[in-house]
């Protein structure tokens, strides 16, 4: 076997191996419903049959009773903001869960004054394990907080420009907003209770603001009564959607998407026929060559 032939076979084998590995390797991206690891959102997708949305154009035409969980880690286009606006005003419920993402872009477009602070909420005392896991103990009586005494957030922020009447949950009095990121409270930094879950009525629908999307990841569901809160969301909706189109895609995810897309293309009749023909040609080539070269060799 010549060196050229060896290199070609080796490259082809490596490519096939990489494709297989990529196809079967589980995703480890934050908030992805395909991710079964601690930072994924597979549990909410499977246990509560939340339908993942790869595009906001897939939102239902009649959003009455539907709930969309949106983690806005990517910028929105005007068309997407229009779709969200229509979804809410026509009776849908938008759960906008953000900490350091683009949630304020949505709020601004919807004409709401409340904003995500974008600064880290720390609670050195009322917490789960350490101050990065603030325990939310002030919960107002509401169908969303039924049977829920406390929530635990994970590297959260807080909401600003809120009214007390619509605040559903606030952090403890010991919490503070770490504006200079030094991990300790300074005299001019806002202290708790700080609003972290908030409700806005808009048109026929609602916007629920949650100052930490990590509430929905697999590892946070079982802590304190986080699961009750999610169950209450599910119990008060007819259809649950979880947006995946505003999560930053990793290389692995992009490659998987590319492979899936390629598979879709290959599933098209013309491509299928072409592929089969190619396989036939490659398979039959040695036989063809034998026949053609026969007289020369003898």
């Amino acid at each position, binding site marked *: 076997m010549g060196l050229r032939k060896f290199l070609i076979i080796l490259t082809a084998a490596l490519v096939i191996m990489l494709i297989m590995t990529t196809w079967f390797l589980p995703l480890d991206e934050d908030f992805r419903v395909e991710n079964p690891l601690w930072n994924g959102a597979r549990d909410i997708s499977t246990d509560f049959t939340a339908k993942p949305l790869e595009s906001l154009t897939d939102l239902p035409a009649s959003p009455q009773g539907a709930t969309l969980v949106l983690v806005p880690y990517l910028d929105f286009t005007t068309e997407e903001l229009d779709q969200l606006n229509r979804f809410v005003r026509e009776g849908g419920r938008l759960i906008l869960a953000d900490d350091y993402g683009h949630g304020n872009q949505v709020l601004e477009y919807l004409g709401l004054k409340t904003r995500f602070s974008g600064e*880290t909420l720390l609670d050195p005392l009322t917490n789960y394990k*350490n101050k990065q896991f603030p325990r939310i*103990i002030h919960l107002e009586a509401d169908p969303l907080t039924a049977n829920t005494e406390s929530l635990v957030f994970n590297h959260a922020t807080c909401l600003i420009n809120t009214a007390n009447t619509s605040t559903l949950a606030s952090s403890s*009095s010991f919490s503070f907003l770490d504006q200079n990121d030094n991990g300790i409270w300074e005299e001019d930094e806002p202290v708790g209770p700080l609003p972290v879950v908030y409700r806005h009525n808009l048109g026929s629908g609602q916007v629920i603001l949650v100052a930490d999307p990590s509430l929905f990841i697999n590892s946070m569901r079982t802590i304190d009564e986080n699961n009750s809160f999610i169950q209450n969301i599910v119990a008060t909706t007819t259809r649950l959607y979880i947006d995946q189109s505003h999560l930053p895609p990793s290389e692995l995810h992009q490659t998987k998407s590319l492979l899936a897309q390629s598979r879709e293309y290959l599933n098209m009749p013309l491509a299928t026929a072409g592929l089969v023909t190619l396989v036939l040609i490659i398979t039959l080539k040695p036989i063809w060559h034998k026949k053609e070269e026969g007289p020369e060799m003898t």
Partner: protein
Amino acid sequence: MKRLVIIISVIAVLGIISPGLPALGQPNRTPHENPGMATDLLDTAALLFHYSQILNLAASMKYQDAGETLKEIREIDIPDELRYLIDRYNDLCQQLFTTLDSLENTLNEASDLIDHNRSDEAKQRLDTAEVLIRDASFLLADIETATDTLSNRLRISASTTENRVREAYARLQESLEQLRRLLERLYNLQQSLTERYTEITALVPTRLSLNIMPVSAFVGDTITAFGTLSGDGTFLPDKNLTLALDNRLVATATTGTNGGFLANITIPYKYTDTMTLVAVYEPVDGDTGKYLASQSPPVIINTMFYRTLLEISTTQTVHPGLPFTISGQVISGDSNIDRTIDVLLDDTRLAEEIVSGQFSVEVTTPEHALPGNHNITVAVVPHERYAGISKARSINISMLPVYIDAQTPSLILLPKSIRIHGTVNYDLGPVPDARVSLTLNNSSSTVRTSPDGSFTALLKAPIDLSFIGQKEMTIDVEPLEPWATNLKVERQLIAINPLTTGLILVILVALTLLVCRRSQTAYEPKGSPLAEIIELPAPTPLKVPRPGLTGIKGRILSAYWGGLEAIEKMCGINMAPHITLREFLRMIKALLPKITGQFSELTTIAENALYSGYRQHKDTAATAEQLAEDIKEELGRGTT
């Protein structure tokens, strides 16, 4: 070759580096960390610091706020060895805040009573305040001791290396000092109020009597209150009095020349069995330095009204957008008068109706009502002598489940259009105009149900890569009615793709043929003994077609044929079609040793020309031709 190696290397390097590039674009804050891997950490400095804040709130007389904040400390995850101490510390603080709050209120009341010359009541408050000050002093001393114990347990000392902890502890001590100063201030206030009390006890005491006529009355009726005011053995004329019913001012009166007073009081629409009336005299203007205040003994008024009874019944489960009936009975005393009832779902009013006796009201659940448990309340509005009443029932708002009966084929051939019939129903009957979406791979079809709930959809199943296998067809039903749930049904179909199945068979057949041919070739005996070859019967010469060859390759092969022909003639052995060049070389090695070297070299050149990818050089062709000539010449000399 070099080019190929470079291209592959570049692709490999890019493949290794590119996955790391997105790290440059990650957000600068961590969205979360694995809670399972997070470390437990009690922030001692923060704990002390927040205790100091709580005590500061108390020192600022914000006892409620201090108490509320203290409650939150109970939510802290405290190590077990500190748990008892922290709990006890919290209890002591809470007790101190409650005591200080009571003390402050009591002193305020005492001050107010002294201002109005109400000496007896002021004395009671001052005595209570004295007890509370003593309790607060003990509690503060306990807290100071507990603070020392806490600092020992937390190993806080002057040598503590962590500045934050030292600073927080110093703040806590400062907060305790502020509390001590607060207690001193309150003690001084109590003392000054006691002095003022002593001063007013020298004033003339007064006495106030109070009677009513009648002693029983319906709500809304008017009664007459009367009595006298006296002091220092004489009736006091022209003094202003106030009359309060259940601590609410209802009338004022002025005493006449004989110290008597009279007032008409309308009983408010308050549906209780009794009300308490008192008359109060508080000296004003010039009388403040002369008379003490007085309050009449309380007089009980028996109030009468008609009680209302309400019975309601409703269904346990209702559906958004669908009406339901609440029935019941309103009994208003002995009569059967019209009463107004309000029907509320949680805090939302659904209906207001005027009913009499038994009633049946139809209300509609709001379309946007969220599924789950809610309260439905029926409230009878109070009306004059008739008291109001309300009763609540828990109801469950739920969506009506939808059922589908769809006939789907279990076996399909691809590509094909599948016709699917079915009906959509719920417990109330057929579901009209519901949106039915069918999806099979990338193909989908959407139809709406007819008034009888039936639908017919045509779904195109396109050709794809599969050949035989199971496919999942999804049917989504979205009813228009707000009270009906969506439905998703999955059906498994066996799909056969004749085209791909046929092609796979062709490939398998081709592969089988190829393998058979290869194995036949590989079966040829290797290195057969020369004796066996020689003993073989002379093979029949084959007329092998030799096509005209051109170019360098042609020249080389022509030279080989030339040499080969000469050898075949000499040996009488023809090169059969199944014999390779090397096998033929091995066969004639023993027969023609003289030309073995030349023919071996010629065979190698011919093999290279036939099988090597390299372009053959002109010199090689010339060498081959020379070797062939040498072989022919050698054989022609007959020296072999």
